């Protein structure tokens, strides 16, 4: 199945009231088996996160003395103190509050900047004729799987010469570059599947390519733009490697946590609260925009 066929399948699934065909009906022993099986799976899959959440409310002495599952025996000692403390706790030169802001400052421009660039390219690849169109697009398809480790040595050399090594600007540009193949690929799949008549009739009405792009393509492509935006935002928010190597104006959420783990034992009680705080943003984005996220995932399931 092609990536776009997977995309279509996912779109079908989004329609809540899609007719269910039930494997062998939802009655009787099958249903019982499915329910208990799925319950066990959900339990196992949720336990780690529940453990983190419970731990984050336990006092420093309780965290080192016993496991989180014994929480029922020390309910009276539950506290918000860890959350209050970790925000001003310094690791690797930043407090968590600062690292949190830094993560936003990295992630938002790194998400916004590539979108427009990719959308123009996707439109040209879909609806404009030019020599070498397919060959050029294959470069993007191939670039989808290039491991981003290739970039570090050459790009840091360039950044060093230009004087933007370790800066926000350097990380924004790098994320824009690493996300570009997926953005172009995903947007072209979507923009290319818009009905030809719409674009043709706009042309007959005398609209230029620039006008068609702004007045027709961009409004029609909001779902695809949103799915790339969510995908890229989660990716840059959760990124560890690029920040670790390319960023030195303080810590971001992931590098902060990694620093805090280094002092494990001492800060075990703060670590869980800190991890939970950094997880809130992606989880909120994820739950409120799950539909777009799923579409982005399915359409981008060839990314490297």
């Amino acid at each position, binding site marked *: 199945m*092609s990536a776009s066929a*997977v995309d279509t399948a*996912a779109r*079908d699934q989004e329609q809540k009231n899609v007719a269910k*065909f039930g*494997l*062998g009906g*939802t009655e009787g022993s*099958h249903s019982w088996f*499915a*329910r208990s099986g*799925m319950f066990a*799976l959900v339990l196992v899959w949720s336990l780690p*996160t529940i*453990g*983190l959440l419970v731990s984050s409310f336990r006092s420093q002495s309780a965290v080192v*003395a016993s*496991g*989180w599952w014994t929480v029922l025996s020390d309910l009276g000692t539950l506290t918000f103190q860890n959350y209050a403390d970790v925000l001003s706790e310094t690791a690797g030169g930043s407090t968590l*509050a600062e690292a949190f*802001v830094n993560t936003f*400052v990295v992630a938002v*421009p790194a998400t*916004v900047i590539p979108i*427009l*660039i*990719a959308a*123009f*390219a996707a*439109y*040209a690849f879909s609806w*404009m*004729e*030019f020599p070498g169109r397919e060959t050029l697009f294959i*470069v993007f398809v*191939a*670039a989808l*799987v290039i*491991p*981003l*480790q290739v970039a*570090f*040595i*050459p790009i840091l050399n360039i950044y*060093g010469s230009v004087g933007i090594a370790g800066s*926000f*600007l350097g990380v*924004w540009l790098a994320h*824009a570059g690493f996300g570009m193949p997926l953005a172009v690929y995903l947007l072209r799949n979507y923009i290319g599947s818009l009905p030809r008549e719409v674009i043709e009739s706009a042309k007959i009405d005398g609209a230029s390519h*620039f006008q068609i792009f702004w007045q027709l393509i961009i409004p029609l492509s909001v779902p695809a733009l949103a799915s790339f935006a969510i995908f890229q935002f989660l990716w840059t928010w*959760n990124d*560890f*490697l690029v920040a670790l*190597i390319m960023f030195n104006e303080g810590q971001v959420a992931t590098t902060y*946590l990694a620093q805090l783990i280094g002092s494990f034992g001492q800060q075990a009680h703060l670590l869980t609260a800190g991890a939970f705080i950094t997880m809130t943003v992606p*989880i909120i*984005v*994820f739950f409120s925009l799950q539909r777009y996220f799923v579409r982005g995932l*399915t359409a981008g399931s060839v*990314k490297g």
Partner: protein
Amino acid sequence: MGAVLVRAVVAITLGVGGAYALFWLGNALVDRFAKKDPDKIRAGVFVAPAMFVVGLFLVFPLFETIRLTFYSNNQVRGEGRAFVGLDNYTAVLSDQVFFSSLWNNILWMIFVPSFAVAIGLAAAVLSDKLKPRWENFSKSLVFLPMAISFVGASVVWQLIYNWRPPSEGQTGLLNGIWVGVFGGDPIAWLDRTAFNDFALMAVMVWLQAGFAMVLLSAAIKSVPEDTLEAARIDGASEIQVFWRIIVPQIASTIVVVATTILILVLKVFDIVSVLGRGGQFGTEVIANTFYTQFESGNYGTAGVYVVVLVLMTIPFMILNIRRFREQEAMR
């Protein structure tokens, strides 16, 4: 902190405004000066920025990194380096760490996609039989780890794998069960070379099974119902229906999901770096060994590890291009 926010706003404004201005200007110049075939030149203007960015951050570095593997390690922005031919390659190939990294990478690439797909498939099939409300709810919970960073997941799983001396209370869930229920001696799950690789892989399976579930669930729902009904009327059991009717029809999705996860774990770094403490106790993988070499300033040697990663991705690159060509032919 305020200054940082101001810079971010400026960056967004300049980034978006600058990109808009660039395209607008390019477009206006084409209108003004291009007499013959203006739309072909215009297409070039539209595509050029994206090409430039991908060229600068992925295509050029690919070849530049390969070139640098033929130079000595003590290179800082090209100064003081010497051409050493294949020396970096022979050094890597005679290093035990390379082979253990490669072997661990191969284990990851075998086990993580298999388990993630198997569990994702089970979740997709089982949840499909639930009432829609419960189906959505249970799927959301299995999918939730997708939103968590690999570093965050490492913190989460420390609470599973923690080890404490037998005299103290266990704080890791696994040891809590092992000591409390089975009466065993606490085990340092992340230190024992016999299974610490698998302890780390479990984290990735936990993160990726939801991804597999979502795609496979969509595929299962698109299997035509009449093929299932026909099989049932012919007396096929539910297990036969699953293996003989459903699985063959979703085989291509299984391949897509497995390859996507495979490409992801090929470059696995964060979990081994944080939970595996940089690949200690024999858990090192290629991307971590690359990082160690990179941090030591051994750019030539580090480059060889990148080349290994690139070589491993080439089959998938070919596969993607072939799939794209087929897709285009169908358009």
